[in-house]
Structures are given as C-alpha cells and as structure tokens.
C-alpha cells in the first residue's frame, strides 16, 4: 500500500530507459529484504493465528470465532477504524487551507510554512506525544489558560479522552496530509484559475469546480497516509489515550506481552490488517478514478 501511495504522490513521468529489460534487478536487494523481514514474519503471523489454543498444540479457526463472537472486540475494532476517519477528516480540513496558503505564498513564506509542516517529522514521536500530555494535562497549558481567562471554573478533562487523542493525532500526522496536497496544488496550472474567473466564475465556484476536483489525487494520497498512520499509532494512542481508551494496537500489545495469548493476538492482528487494507483499497480506487484525467 505504501508503494501505491508513493506512486500517487510522485509524478509518474518516467525518463527514457537506457537498459530496458534489466531495471528489475535493481529491486532485488529490497525484494530480498522484504521477503526475509516482512513476508516471512507475516506468514508466521498467519500460521500462529491458526492455532486453536493459546498453548499452540492444534490447528483450528477458534481464535477468529472467538474474536467475532464477542461484541467487545467488534467495539474495539470499530472505534479504531472510526478514530482513523475522524483524524483523517480533521487533518484534511486543517491541512488543505495550509497547503493552499503555501502555493499562494512567496518563497520566504514557503520555506517558513514547510518548516512548520515538517517540524513534527523531525522530532521523536515520544517527545511529540509527551508535549501533548503537557499541553492537555490537568495542570497543562490549555487548562491554565482557560482558568486564567475565567472560561472554566475547574480544570477540564482533556488528556485520556478521545477528543484529546484526536487533536494530538491530527497534529502528529499533519505532514503526511499536507505534503501530498502541496505537490498536487503546485502542479495545478494557474491559467486554469484565470480561465475560470474570465469565464465568469467567482472564487468559490472556481474552487469547487476546478481546484478541488483537480487536487483529488493529492487528497486521496494524503488521506491514505494519514488514515493508515493514525489507526496504527501505538505510542500516541497509548500515551494520550491512556488506559481508559482501548484501540486495536494496544489490544494486540496486551494480548501478546501481558496475556501471552499469541494465537489470539495474531488473529486480531490479521483482522485489523485486513480491515485497514480494505479502507485503504477503497481510497485507492477513488484515487485511481480521479487520477486518469490529471496527468494528461
């Protein structure tokens, strides 16, 4: 899924090939690496998930039956997938204007904006997440401000809530949304916008009829990356979400490390992976439909 996303982000114009037919050998080292360290463990995971008991003595689909038979598991899966939807939607909502502002700015402003956007990528995820703990905590920056301004009488519970988690994830995943958007928006021919306004369209009509449809590939690429990253963001989910909120990565972790129930952990990993892949494929289909006419 990462490969297809990169394809969406980078332009698809390949230069003429000098040694046609042999380029595939360049991919051999990476293929070997993936085979040993990604495909093999994944196959092992499949095998482990097919053990019927936690002692791994006999095969059977009992783990999957157990997962789907319990409403609690459905709820964890559902809330994880929905968390991704909320984070992705908000990231898009905040990221799009930012990317648009970037394309309209002078070179100096552009460097400043790009720095702000990629800054989160330059710091460790643990540091970033703890920064959010400091901001959202009972004695944190937000609560202190609200109390000082008299907007709240007692500190609000922000940390360890889903809304706090969504806010933290939106900030953490912002670059994954903004960078693909910037790529598509800068490639948009400014004459199209001039043509639209000369034909009598106002700024909003131009945006909804021209800019938005033509930036769809960037939107899809950004959503794909943001969604995949936010549903699997174990560290942020655990630290900002705390013990009260349970999402799939934390659930898998508990089953493996705390309860040593490897077959069940493997089974819910498989279910989680397939669900996320399903969403990603759906987005990818959308992207492919919109990509056809862009790279004319």
């Amino acid at each position: 899924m990462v490969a297809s996303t990169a394809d969406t982000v980078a332009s698809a114009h390949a230069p003429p090939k000098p040694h046609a037919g042999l380029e595939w050998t360049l991919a051999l080292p990476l293929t070997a690496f993936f085979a040993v360290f990604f495909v093999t463990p994944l196959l092992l995971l499949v095998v482990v998930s097919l053990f019927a008991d936690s002692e791994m003595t006999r095969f059977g689909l009992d783990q999957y039956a157990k997962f789907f038979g319990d409403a609690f598991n459905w709820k964890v899966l559902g809330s994880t997938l929905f968390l991704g939807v909320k984070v992705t939607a908000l990231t898009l909502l905040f990221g799009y204007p930012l990317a648009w502002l970037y394309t309209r700015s002078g070179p100096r402003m552009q460097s400043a904006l790009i720095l702000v956007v990629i800054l989160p990528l330059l710091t460790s995820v643990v540091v970033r997440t703890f920064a959010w703990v400091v901001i959202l905590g009972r004695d944190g920056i937000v609560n202190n401000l609200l109390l000082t301004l008299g907007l709240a009488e007692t500190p609000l519970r922000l940390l360890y809530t889903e809304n706090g988690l969504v806010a933290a994830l939106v900030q953490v995943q912002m670059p994954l949304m903004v960078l693909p958007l910037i790529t598509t928006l800068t490639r948009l021919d400014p004459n199209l916008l001039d043509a639209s306004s000369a034909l009598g369209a106002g700024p909003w009509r131009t945006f909804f009829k021209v800019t938005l449809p033509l930036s769809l590939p960037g939107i899809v690429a950004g959503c794909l990356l943001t969604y995949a990253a936010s549903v699997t963001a174990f560290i942020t989910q655990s630290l900002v979400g705390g013990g009260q909120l349970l999402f799939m990565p934390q659930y898998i972790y508990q089953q493996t490390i705390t309860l040593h129930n490897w077959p069940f952990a493997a089974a819910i990993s498989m279910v989680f992976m397939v669900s996320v892949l399903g969403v990603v494929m759906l987005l990818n289909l959308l992207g492919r439909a919109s990509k056809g006419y862009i790279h004319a």
Partner: protein
Amino acid sequence: MAALQFARSQDRKAPPPAAETASTPGGVAVTLDGITHRFGTTTAVNDVTLEIKAGEMVALLGPSGCGKTTLLRILAGFQSQTLGRVVIGDRVVDSLPPAGRGVGIVFQNYALFPHMTVAQNVAYGLEARGTAREAVRARVEGMLDLVKLGAMRDRFPKQLSGGQQQRVALARALAIQPSILLLDEPFAALDKNLRLDMQIEIKQLQRRFGITTIMVTHDQEEALSMADRIAVLSRGRLEQFGTPEEVYDRPASLFVNSFVGSANQLKGRILRNAGGTADVALDAGAVLSAGTFDSGLAEGAPAVLCVRPENLRLAAEPAPQQIPGTVELALPLGPVVVYEVRTADGGQVKVTEPRVAGVPLREAGTPVRLHPVSPQACRVFAALA
C-alpha cells in the same frame, strides 16, 4: 506572404452568420490610455496608448519580455496597471474583475479543464453566469458545430489533438458572447501545417462574429498574416502601431525594421535630409537616397540605412547608386537564391533574388554590384550610439 494572401482570399468567401449565431455580439472599440506597469523597480509596460477600432484584429508583436503579455493580462483584468486607463466599449473597466469585462480569452496552453468533457468545458462560462439549462445546451451545440467538434462533445481534452484543443478553447471563450476576444500566443503550440489551417479558421470566425480581437505573438509572420493592425512593442514601449503594410514597408524605427522581416543595416553619414528623403554616403562606398521619418537627422550625422534582402539586386555592369561587393556564399532555396555579399567596408549584406531558370548561380568570389530595386522602400534611421 503566401499565408497572407491565402487568408485574405478565404475571408471574402466567408459565409454570412448562421442562424445559431444570430445574436452576434459585434465588436466594440478598445482604448488603452497611457498604460504603464511596473513590477517592483522594472517597468514592464511603459506609457502605451492604443486605440483599437470596433471589430478590428490587432496583434501585439514583440520579442519575449517586451511587455505584450503583461498588456494582455491588464486588458483581461488579471493584473491591474500602475498607471493609465483601459476602456472597453464606452466603459472604463479598471475596477472590474475579469468576469465583468466581457472578455473571452484563449490561453497559449489553452487551459482547458482536464476533468471536464469538451461540452462541459464550453458550457462552463454559461453555467457560471446562471444561464438556463436548455439555453446552455443549445448554445454549446451551436458553438461545437461552429468549430466543427460536435462529434467530440463527450471526449476529454487529453483525447484531442492540439488543433482540436484550440478549437474547444475558442468555443469556450466565444460561448459567453464576449465583447472582445484575447488570444495569447494562440499558435505557438501547433505544428507548422496545422498552424496555417487554424490561422485561417480563427480569422474567418473573427470576421464572422465581427468581434474585436487582440492577439499576442512573437511571430512576425503570424502578425502580418492575421492582423488588421500591428502594435510593435520593444522593452515595454510602443514602437509602431499600423497596418501590416505600413509596419513592413515604412517601419517607424530601426527596431521595427529589423524585427519585422529581415533588414540589412548599412552604416553611413547623412549628406542631405529634406522632405522625407535622405541621401546617405555609405561606408561601403556609394551614395543612396532613401525615405526617412527622422527630419532631425542633420547633415554629417551618423546614420543607418536599412534595406530588405528582397529589395536588392545583383548587377554585373556599373551604374549610379550601386554598392560594390564580392559574393561569399550562394544559398539556392527553391524559388529564390540568397546571396551573402561582402562589401568594401567589411560588412555583410544579404540579397534575395528570384531564381531564373537556366541562369547559373553566381559563385563565391564573383565581384558584383548591389543596387536597391526601390530606393523609397529603404529607410534611414539615426545610428545607435
């Protein structure tokens, strides 16, 4: 020049307006009044005044960076000028956005909306103006018939050839019944054969609609063949505004003379200057009299005499008003022969002679004498310091 005659002869046969174009907008006059535009400290357009008549086709001609595109963008309303007024019809449009000026514009790269079909592209302006659906459909069909693209209505722009894309762009611009049509380097992206076809087609459409059209181009042949009048621009200044004949035969400045067509520049000094005719003693060793607009050129002043290659002939026998020289190179180009001739002062002169069957080419090294066919078609300008 063949293109010029072809285009003209086609015009006379232009059919009367068809029924669907009965609501012909007709032309309006356009005035650019003292337009100056500065980007930071550089002046892109410097005090340009143009009065364009209703229904006229005007070419803004000049090399890149001469300010012609800036002028077009100011006319369209994409940019507001630093100084001056733009009048379209009887309205001063300086404070109006592009949509309010009634301009149709065809961009150099056509700027068709890639995610819309041909019909959707043409309908875009009408829908933006809130035209009723049935009226939009009828008008789109009419416009597509006009540019002969009815069969392509459901194709996307990238499925069309360059000429077809340009026709869509034209149909889209004309669909909103603009009072003026702006064309930005309209033929630059087309290959040579297609270019001539599209030039004829656009010229016919323009005549049929009677729409005032302003075209930006760096291609002098395009300007000469298409436009009723040409505005030659250089470094933001208007050098000359006149008919193709005026610009070609009576260039107002040394720049116009060398930019439009090609010109040999012969250095010399003024002997006499009166009544629009100047006698020049050329460094190459002859005295020629030629036309000039510059009555301020005093006796003895350094001057440049411009003579076009097709206005020169080679002669073997001596006669008055001849420049001696030696043939350096002969290029037979089919109907004409181009000779490169070295004059006594070391200058090089190009001569284009019609090819006469059975007459051998003059070989390199042959001494010849040059003389202008029409001295009045030569021009004298002050030499640049």
